[in-house]
């Protein structure tokens, strides 16, 4: 068991010294007061989880006051690893929608790619600007030891959570300015600027503006990440549009403005592939723009991330990422994958069924911590149920060992207790590849829990990277 703050001899790790004394000096009363202050702040700015019904009070994600801290040395390894991975994933996308070298080389089986729903046939033979398919990649990492990190999954479509990363920092700086005077914490607030630069560097061929017009496409206020959409467009100073603001005419995409139509160069879309274009994908979609794919394929607009990027974060493709890194970059992977059994394969399936009570079983298309089985924490009945599912739909599942996620000190009822955490840093890929000096630390607030997802009681923490 690895603890982020305490060494095995229960001494405090250096980077936590200030935090430790700060914690000791904080009375229960102050903690309650600060918690309340943070909650009020989050409610006031409207960073809430779901806005389904305006009469029901919106949910807040629990925020923990104790930051999670990385030293500069620890971070630089993660930084290199995440950027390496993001490059390989983009190279993979470019390859499978064009030559398919990795398939010809028998590294990734062709049915694992071409038979997936997330493989988008309309992208075959088309290359987006700079061959960047996925300009924003969120990599979910866990730590099991001082120098041991694993990638749990990649998010290549439209990873969310970056607004929490930024707001968590804002509230911490507001409530505890002294902490930032004592500790040399690298700033993260340039993320929106870098995101905008990244998107602008991905303008399509036919773009005529020296400063491309970028918009953020949102499904609307009912979407659970709506706060993030408005936050990011605000910070970037770009229009946040809904499909009804857009239309296609003569091979270009326009938005309706009070001045009349205005041409758009880059769409940072926060809606799923399926809904993008009713003429190309789901014809029932009312949140998409008819004809946008046609404009995209003829170089009139860029869509970020590219349709069909989702194949790269498919749980069955995940298994091959270390091989991809070797194949495309000629490098050794810096970050490890979690050992994964693909139930598609007969021998793997047999192993999984024999060892099910020691494994975590996940749906290939599942997310949010739903539809999974944590073997060591499940009853015999649940296990038997899952065995049945595996036998009848072996293609739909993968299995992994239950990893010992690191513990981070967390305030539970004003007492410091250990809770498990993961980390999602955000990698930007445009003209250059860069990793923001921070990330979103999610914490499983329930004692003993391994599930950090906000939909299942997970909370968040500010994440510090210290300057050298």
């Amino acid at each position, binding site marked *: 068991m690895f603890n982020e703050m305490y060494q095995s001899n229960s001494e405090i790790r250096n980077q936590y010294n200030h935090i430790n004394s700060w914690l000791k000096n904080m009375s229960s009363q102050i903690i309650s007061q600060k918690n309340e202050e943070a909650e009020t702040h989050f409610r006031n*700015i409207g960073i809430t989880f779901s806005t389904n019904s*305006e009469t029901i009070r919106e949910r807040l994600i629990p925020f923990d006051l104790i930051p999670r801290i990385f030293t500069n040395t620890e971070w630089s390894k993660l930084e290199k690893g995440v950027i390496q991975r993001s490059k390989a994933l983009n190279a993979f996308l470019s390859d499978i929608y064009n030559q398919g070298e990795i398939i010809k080389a028998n590294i990734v089986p062709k049915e694992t790619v071409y038979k997936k729903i997330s493989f988008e046939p309309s992208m075959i033979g088309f290359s987006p600007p700079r061959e960047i398919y996925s300009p924003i990649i969120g990599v979910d990492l866990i730590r099991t030891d001082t120098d041991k990190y694993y990638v749990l999954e990649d998010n290549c479509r439209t990873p969310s959570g970056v607004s929490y990363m930024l707001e968590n920092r804002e509230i911490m700086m507001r409530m505890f300015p002294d902490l930032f005077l004592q500790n040399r914490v690298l700033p993260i607030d340039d993320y929106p600027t870098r995101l905008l630069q990244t998107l602008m560097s991905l303008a399509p061929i036919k773009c005529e503006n020296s400063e491309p017009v970028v918009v953020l496409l949102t499904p609307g206020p009912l979407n659970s990440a709506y706060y993030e959409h408005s*936050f990011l467009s605000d910070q970037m100073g770009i229009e946040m549009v809904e499909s009804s*603001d857009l239309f296609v005419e003569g091979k270009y995409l326009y938005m309706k*403005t*009070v001045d009349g139509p205005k041409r758009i160069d880059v769409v940072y879309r926060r809606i799923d592939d399926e809904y993008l274009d009713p003429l190309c994908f789901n014809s029932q979609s009312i949140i998409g723009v008819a004809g946008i794919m046609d404009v995209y394929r003829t170089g009139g607009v860029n869509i970020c991330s590219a349709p069909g990027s989702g194949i790269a974060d498919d749980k069955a493709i995940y298994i091959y990422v270390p091989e991809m890194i070797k194949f495309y970059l000629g490098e050794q992977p810096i970050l490890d994958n979690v050992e994964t059994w693909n139930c598609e394969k007969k021998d793997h399936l047999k192993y999984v069924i024999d060892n099910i009570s020691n494994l975590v079983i996940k749906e290939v298309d599942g997310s949010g911590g739903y539809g999974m089985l944590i073997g060591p924490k499940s009853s015999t009945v649940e296990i038997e149920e899952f065995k049945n599912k595996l036998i009848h739909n072996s293609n739909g599942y993968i299995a992994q060992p239950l990893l010992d996620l690191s513990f981070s000190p967390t305030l539970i009822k004003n007492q410091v207790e250990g809770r498990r955490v993961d980390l999602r840093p955000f990698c930007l890929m445009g003209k250059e590849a860069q990793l923001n000096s921070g990330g979103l630390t999610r914490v499983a607030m329930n004692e003993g829990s391994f599930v950090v997802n906000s939909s299942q009681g997970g909370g968040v923490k500010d994440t510090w990277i210290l300057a050298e």
Partner: protein
Amino acid sequence: MLSRTAENLYWISRYMERAETTARLIDVGYRMSLFPNPNGHNNEWESVLAAAGAIVGYKEKYDTINQVNVEDYLFFDEDNPSSIYNCILNARKNALIVRTSFTSESWLAINKAYQEILKLKENKFVTADLPNLTEWTIEQVNLFRGSIGSLLRNDGYNFLFLGLFIERADNSARLLDVKYFVLLPKPKYVGGSLDNVQWSILLRSLSSFRAFRWAYDGNVTATKIADFLVLNRDCSRSLSFCIQNIVDHLINLKCSPLKVDKIYQTIKDLNASIQQEKIEAIIDYGLHEFVSQFIKKISSVDSDIQKEFFY
């Protein structure tokens, strides 16, 4: 600027303005209920409902007019589109969509109002709290108005103010219309001071009670009040002030000069004539007729703005 953004901004300030008007009306009703009234205690509440344009909706819901129900209907009722609750809810709904086009302070002002009114609504209110509630509402609206002072003076700013003054012009005119009988019969027939209570209702509901005293010396007469509320350019609620501001913010728009001019042509005569008008002439012509025409005109400007700019 997105057309939809312009539309959202326009409606945010309309709803906030409407919330204030409703709050002032409730306040007037409350004050009246504390005075002895020869016509029975509930008389004033009916006229408050009428001024709020809520009498039809109210009667669908309640058989009798009494203070508790009227207060609840005007303040919290989800079925009353002009209740303060709904105004704030709708302002926030619009603000949620255009957070990116105004300052974070403006969003905070609206969202805090929203968070608080949810709590107020949960706690069963008692009548004695009513002055606090109306005061609270006016405070929220003022916070919002203060916050938009730091906006960029771009088209968004002008659309916000177009919404504000269209709503205010309409509200002021309707109040005048509902209460015009206070100023009638003709001044020469009344000849002297008006019923103190009646005119104070009108002025208070337009947040102009003290301003009037400052603006006019001597006796309170119907002519003076009508002049103040219709023609006085110093009174921030008068019809004349509202129309001048609509014109100003319209011609300040930088977008689509052709559309701006088209709407300007329809409103410039009204603005010019109201400048030259004498109050005696209006009263002779009929205040009710004058105000009705004004309301019609404002409503057509409103629909022109919506048609031209919001698609």
